């Protein structure tokens, strides 16, 4: 199931110089016109161990979308009745006895059970190539590209034996195509410091009310790691302090910083810039992991309500599917009341641009996954202008026509538009009933990028990678105010943001971005494909969110 082989091309941009695409070769089918790299292939050693997933039948799968909508609907009895991962599994998954039978079947055929997520969406298993061939009739091939990167792919389609079919609907994870990677761009020497963000977006007045993230927590999803000394240097350079970042390493996660280090540093430091006293958990997963691996872990750990993800891949290549384990994991997170902020991509409306390796570009109009999931909050990018005193002047949608970069945004080809995605501008000439992104925006143009310390160096980092932790950090302040005011859990915030934006078209809560474009779609009054509702006026939006939650109790 190639759709779950995320290969997440990080939406990272650093500054303004390096432009081009870097990406990924993939075992996944490439859209027409894509030129792949030179790849060699050989049959895998039969003794080689392979980890894969058995995607479980979910009897309640058809009810998930409606249940999620009900939790977001103030008029529903289920409004704000959040579900733990276990409760989600009990409501939509197989009975535990059935799952045990499935696990026993695998055990009896020599496979080892590695993990069974509480939401009952799949079993993670390990077995040899030979076992996979003899049991499911699927071969495994090793592939290596010209760069020396290696992965494996399935040869043929696995056949689920009749005895398993009541429990298992498919096998996945047999394709470990190399993940995409961040695209560092180095630019202007200054960048937005925490004080600049605070002044421009109204954090200053929140800070005066004691909102600094104290007592709150937030998670970052990383497919790389960072150097803690960089965080200390950032703190010293910007005059902030807070709890040390705690790392939650999934098996196989990188032990030393790699290509994605700047992305991780950007995410952590940007959240720290907005909510310095919050406890940040950096959930670090290997590049070959599935989204469900890390999302399920975050939900089951129960440490955070807000998550920042600045990684993704264009939807046609990621091949997500409604109801697949990744989608179930994200739905489970939404229904547990988590707000997951996800970068909308850095190639404007042409999100697949970087997918072909080497000499080709893919100009398919496409959006980014998982940003395009209806269970997350997609964050686009802007260019921020300031007055001489550092106060907010204006924003335009981020696009670099010559560099072929800009704020990701467009329509899903897989996921339907959720019921709460309504408001001025949402229904437009391009609307077709599918999910539209982004939902909101923040500073993302490398020309108004974030000041970051990574690998011991000062950098200016932009992209929707920057806008996303900016939003996540900002909502940590809302979470703190909610706690302070006794408003309780904020829950999945996207429906709240849409309700507030639609009701406040006077610009009092959002900076509605009406200039610029994302290489295709222009920024317009109200919601648009380049910047969603725009960027936050946090001094007004944060209390408005809390007031909304208080006014709509469960």
């Amino acid at each position, binding site marked *: 199931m190639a759709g779950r082989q995320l290969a997440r091309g990080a939406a990272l941009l650093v500054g303004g110089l390096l432009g081009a695409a870097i990406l990924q070769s993939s075992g996944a089918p490439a859209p027409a016109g894509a030129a792949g790299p030179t790849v060699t292939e050989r049959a895998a050693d039969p003794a080689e161990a392979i*980890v894969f997933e058995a995607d479980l039948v979910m009897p309640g799968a058809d009810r998930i979308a409606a249940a999620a909508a009900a939790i977001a609907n103030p008029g529903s009895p289920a409004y704000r009745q959040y579900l733990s991962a276990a409760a989600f599994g009990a409501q939509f998954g197989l009975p535990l006895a059935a799952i045990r039978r499935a696990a026993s079947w695998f055990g009896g055929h020599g496979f080892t059970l590695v993990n069974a997520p509480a939401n009952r969406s799949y079993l993670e298993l390990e077995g040899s190539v030979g076992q996979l061939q003899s049991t499911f009739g699927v071969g495994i091939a090793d592939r290596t590209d010209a760069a020396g990167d290696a992965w494996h792919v399935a040869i043929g389609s696995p056949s689920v034996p009749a005895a398993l079919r009541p429990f298992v609907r498919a096998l996945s994870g047999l394709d470990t195509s190399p993940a995409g990677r961040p695209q560092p761009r180095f630019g202007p020497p200054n960048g937005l410091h925490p004080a600049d963000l605070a002044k421009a977006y109204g954090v200053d007045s929140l800070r005066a009310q004691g909102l600094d993230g104290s007592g709150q927590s937030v998670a970052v999803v990383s497919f790389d790691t960072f150097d803690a000394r960089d965080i200390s240097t950032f703190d010293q350079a910007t005059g902030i302090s807070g709890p040390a970042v705690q790392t939650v390493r999934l098996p196989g996660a990188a032990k030393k910083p790699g290509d994605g280090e700047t992305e991780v540093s950007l995410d952590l430091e940007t959240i720290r810039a907005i909510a310095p006293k919050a406890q940040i958990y950096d959930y670090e997963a290997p590049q070959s992991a599935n989204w469900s691996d890390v999302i399920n872990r975050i939900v089951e750990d129960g440490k955070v309500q807000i998550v920042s993800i600045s990684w993704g891949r264009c939807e046609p290549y990621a091949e997500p599917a409604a109801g697949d384990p990744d989608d179930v994991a994200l739905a489970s997170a939404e229904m547990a009341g988590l707000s997951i902020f996800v970068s909308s991509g850095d190639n404007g409306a042409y999100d697949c641009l970087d997918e072909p390796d080497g000499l080709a570009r893919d100009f398919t109009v496409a959006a980014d996954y998982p940003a395009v999931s209806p269970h997350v909050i997609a964050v686009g990018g802007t260019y921020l202008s300031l007055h*001489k005193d550092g106060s907010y002047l204006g924003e335009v949608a981020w696009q670099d026509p010559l560099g072929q970069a800009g704020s990701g945004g467009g329509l899903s080809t897989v996921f339907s538009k959720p019921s709460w995605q309504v408001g001025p501008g949402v229904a437009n000439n391009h609307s077709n009933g599918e999910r539209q992104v982004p939902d909101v925006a923040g500073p993302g143009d490398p020309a108004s990028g974030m000041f970051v310390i990574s690998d011991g160096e000062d950098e200016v980092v932009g992209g929707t990678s920057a806008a996303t932790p900016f939003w996540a950090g900002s909502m940590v302040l809302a979470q703190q105010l909610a706690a302070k005011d006794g408003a309780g859990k904020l829950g999945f915030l996207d429906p709240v943001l849409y309700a507030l934006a639609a009701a406040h078209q006077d610009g009092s809560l959002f900076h509605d971005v009406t200039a610029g474009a994302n290489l295709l779609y222009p920024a317009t009054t109200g919601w648009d494909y380049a910047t969603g509702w725009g960027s936050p006026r946090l001094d007004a939006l944060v209390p408005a969110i809390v007031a909304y939650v208080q006014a709509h109790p469960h």
Partner: protein
Amino acid sequence: MARADPQGGFAAQPRRSGSPLVRFAIIFVVILVITLVIVAVLTPSPPASSCPPAPAPCGVPPKPPGNGTTGGGANQGTGSGDELVVGTAWTSSEFGFSFHYDADAWDVQQDEKDLLQLKSPSDPAADREDWVIVEGASSTSDTPDQLIQARVASLQQSVPDLAPDSGSYYDVKGAEIGDVQGIAAVYVGTLDDTDGTPVAPVRYSIVAATHGGLTVAITVRTLDPDAIADHGPPAITWHMLSRQLVDPILEDFRWPAGN
């Protein structure tokens, strides 16, 4: 878990030095780091914040207004002249359009009343031989397409084989100058040496737009680095990098007030 750790000899590591583009990125970063180290050694700086005294902001997003006198349009700003300005300003004395450019990235090659040509710094370490021309014309005499064709005709005097780029790699989507929608074209050719020997594959990316009585064209020349160095990044990366340096000018461009 698991899938993360492909066994049996799978490298399964992030694509570190994989594609030529990645290799270039690494080379670029290394050069940048070396440069920064040299600068750091020669110019001691305090470890603390680089923030200037209040009320000036710490980090400066380089979005300049038009000479502090026009502003507005692209920034949704007030045009009151209190915008934060970074970069070197240039205004066409004939047509009144203006923009800012990064003087560290560009040297002035030609300064006319209706045209500014910038070229990559002469510093050999920069290893670039790119240039950009920003030129204006009356819209009554030139449409964007006509201005592009005029520029192409001029270029063909030194690049006889200049022709439209038949590939799509360098297509320019969302062509705009100062928030005014325009058109774009990409041409390729070969620069000849003085004796007529072809020496350097060259690419020209041109964006043009009309607003009111003014038509503007911005032409970027990028050279194949193989022609200027024995080593370095792949040509496609080089062209894209160099071209991207001009995006801030497109973004910052200010059409004259009342135009």
